[in-house]
């Protein structure tokens, strides 16, 4: 069976499970999803708080509940899952996927199409080079979440949270629920990293102080963390002398950003976008290797799992089309360009083979009426505001592209009105 796989999907998080469903529904015969953990669901398994699926199911679900619905559907349509199976290498030329599993040992798979759905990982402490010692008690928020929600252990009693990414906000509340103290959340930027609703529901509701333009400047403690020094920063993010403050704590949780996890993509020789950190893709979610597709946080870090599932369905369906020889080889490749206030976006190319959504984030917040648009005259939508912590979308119909045979590029931007 190994050499008879139509679509092989790497990672059974929300993107991967949806890709499996999308591939089966498009008519692929053998669709296999590989998962390195013992269970399906990816990071959503440890997200036991509600707030998932408002768009897709019109109700608030927990992470495991949301995944359960997709997993059930995947089983119904005949997706094959292999858990405890890790891909550790993809060969560039042959697209051979090397897997390992305790029962099956090491295997080489040669699928007709591949979908990358490995998700993302958290930025570690070293990425921001905070001076001081290296005691225990410093965790990324996701690692702490795994300890608390999956293993049932507390990482500490009194926490400081650095960065205001969503997992950090969620974990601030979680630590309070478990009887720990949270001294405060510190964000180096002048705007929050996570969603406003999480600031309200996880910090404000629990009286957890939130400090913008403030960061940790020193770590104290030999064995276990004993405290951190925080300081306000100026517009160049340099700590301001005289604003330093020592905070006693035994735990520092980091929510300082997520990075698409593309070690395997690099091995496969796929072009990685310098800004998104994910594969360069077109609107079919096809990478620069035509047999390899990618979806979800491995491409660009989304705010909402609903978007990740939607993209997974699309990537799976197109991978199936590729496996079945139904993707035209001479599809268009119209580049998308970001305007002045666009930090990142995906996809970077449009074929016009299908209706598409371009996801984007602004560089600087616009706290007034503004509009998101795509030139030449493809899309325009008024917004009340635009914030880096909240993604914006541009929707383009295949028909619009077909009607513009000389279209050479699409420019997207968000500007005040």
């Amino acid at each position: 069976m190994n050499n008879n796989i139509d679509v092989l999907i790497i990672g059974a998080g929300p993107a991967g499970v949806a890709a499996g469903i999308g591939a089966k529904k498009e008519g692929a015969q053998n669709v296999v999803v590989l998962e390195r953990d013992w269970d399906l669901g990816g990071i959503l398994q440890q997200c036991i708080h509600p707030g998932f699926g408002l768009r897709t199911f019109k109700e608030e679900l927990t992470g495991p509940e949301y995944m359960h619905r997709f997993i059930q559907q995947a089983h119904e349509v005949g997706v094959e899952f292999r858990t405890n199976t890790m891909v550790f290498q993809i060969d560039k030329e042959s697209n051979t996927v090397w897997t390992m599993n305790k029962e099956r040992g090491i295997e080489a798979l040669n699928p007709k199409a591949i979908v990358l759905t490995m998700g993302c990982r958290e930025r570690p402490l070293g990425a921001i080079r905070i001076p001081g010692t290296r005691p225990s008690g410093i965790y990324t928020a996701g690692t702490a979440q795994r300890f608390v929600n999956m293993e049932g252990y507390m990482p500490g009693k009194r926490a400081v949270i650095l960065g205001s990414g969503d997992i950090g906000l969620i974990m601030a509340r979680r630590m309070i629920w478990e009887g720990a103290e949270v001294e405060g959340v510190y964000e180096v930027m002048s705007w929050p990293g996570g969603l406003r609703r999480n600031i309200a529901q996880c910090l404000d509701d629990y009286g957890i102080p939130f400090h913008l333009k403030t960061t940790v400047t020193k770590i104290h403690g030999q064995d276990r963390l004993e405290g951190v020094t925080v300081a306000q920063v100026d517009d160049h993010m340099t700590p301001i002398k005289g604003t330093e403050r020592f905070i006693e704590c035994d735990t520092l949780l980091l929510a300082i950003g997520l990075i698409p996890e593309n070690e395997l993509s690099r091995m496969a020789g796929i072009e990685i976008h310098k800004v998104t950190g994910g594969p360069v893709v077109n609107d079919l979610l096809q990478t620069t290797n035509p047999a390899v597709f990618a979806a979800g946080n491995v491409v660009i870090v989304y705010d909402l799992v609903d978007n990740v599932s939607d993209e997974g369905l699309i990537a799976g369906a197109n991978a199936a089309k590729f496996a079945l020889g139904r993707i035209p080889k001479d599809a268009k490749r119209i580049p998308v360009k970001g305007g002045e206030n666009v930090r990142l976006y995906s996809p970077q190319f449009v074929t016009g083979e299908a209706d598409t959504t371009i996801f984007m984030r602004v560089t600087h917040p616009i706290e007034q009426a503004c509009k998101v648009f795509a030139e030449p005259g493809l899309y325009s939508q008024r917004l009340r505001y635009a914030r880096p912590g909240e993604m914006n979308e541009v929707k383009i119909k295949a028909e619009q592209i077909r009607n513009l045979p000389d279209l050479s590029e699409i420019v997207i931007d968000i500007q005040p009105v």
Partner: protein
Amino acid sequence: MNYDIVIIGSGITGASIARELSRYKLNIAVLDKASELPAGASRANSSMIHGGFDDKPGTAKAKFCVPGNKLWHKLKDELDVHIDECGSFVCAFNDDEIKHLELLLSQGKANGAPGVEIVSGDELRKREPNVSPEIVAALWSPEAAIINNFEAVNAMIESAQINGAKLFLETQVTGLLFDDKGGIRGVATNKGDFTAPIVINAGGTHAGEIASWAGDSSFKIIPTKGEYFLLDRVAGTFVTSFLFSCPSKAGKGITVLRTAEGNLMAGPTATEQEDPEDRATTPEGLAEVLKGARKLVPNFPVNMNITTFAGVRANTESGDFEIRALTKPRGFINAAGIKSPGFTSSPAIAQYIAELIREELSDRVKLTPNEKFIPERRNVPRFLYLNMDERKKLAEKDPAYAQIVCRCETVTEGQVIEAIRRGARTITAVKMMTRAGTGRCQGGFCCPRVAEILSRELNIPLEEITRHGGGSKLLVGKTKEFLLNKEGK
């Protein structure tokens, strides 16, 4: 506990001495206060095997560096240690610095360092295209190499253990014991007395204090901090050899190198301090490293940094190694002040210590060759570097080798279990022995998994697992228990 030899400290110096002396029929105890090896300066240094041009002829450093370099090139196979034989360049930016290169060249010739020569800046850039266009010349040393220092210390001490030496971790020497003739009788520790007619002081930054207990105040250790940046493997193609700046009085200056494992690295600073245990990085130190790195490699990709760290090296006032057997108390040997090129020199120093014992202390301990000495020692299998057939075989033999624990460095559960079998008891010990947690996510993924395996294999509760011994526990309790305890129910 009675031994023939007690060695204080199991850094590269102590471990090399232990291994060298295990060639003889001796009961050897090696004591270290740390929970895992390497711990002190042997953990946090530039991992350089020096070419031997940097030391003034006639010094102890000059005496041991070139022979040490030669020994390491042989030991790497015997001990299964990773060495990248990349060579080194000392870079000169102006005429004054070229004069310095000429001095180094003549020292190199006097010290017997093979193949040392001065090349032009353009020749350097042919091999290292990312170095500064302002470099006008460089001293090339082909025998210089970069070693995996974590592996090397563990390999040395393991080889000694294979040949009968005993290692005692978390064992801190608190004083010396003397016999009624004023000779050495052993050491007192937090774990009780270890008696032996010969005590070797390889106490690193604490060696001065330990020597003073023996009444020896002939040298003083000046703890000197060195701070470093460690970058992602992805940045490892930026430079492929070891790049020195021209040295100043404080040290060899900021260097840029590719580690034996392919990470880009820059450092160290040289800041003298009182506290031998202060390994905190500082804003000033890190800024100095970055400035120095950018001088050598202008587009040094600091955005790929994965961690910063500092080590404290055992500088001496003389600037040289302090290696001698004391006449009073007899039986006490200093192997102190072992800083750069200490890692390089250590196997040669170890041979010299054996010679000292043979020539000066044979009344205390006789060196009878151990015919059963096994020079070879194999590393924990390194899955990352095996070919696919080797990997398949390993996974067939033991399914734990078909389970990745550390994604960044491709470390399997089998390797973690093997490290535990060889004595690893902490997260950091597993890291030192397998490299789990040394990669770009710095343990974010593998730390909980390694903790689980430690807990399972050692049959101790997860809450008891520490990062690096002492009070460095990872967790503070179970979730609901914690809440109930807090509410006093």
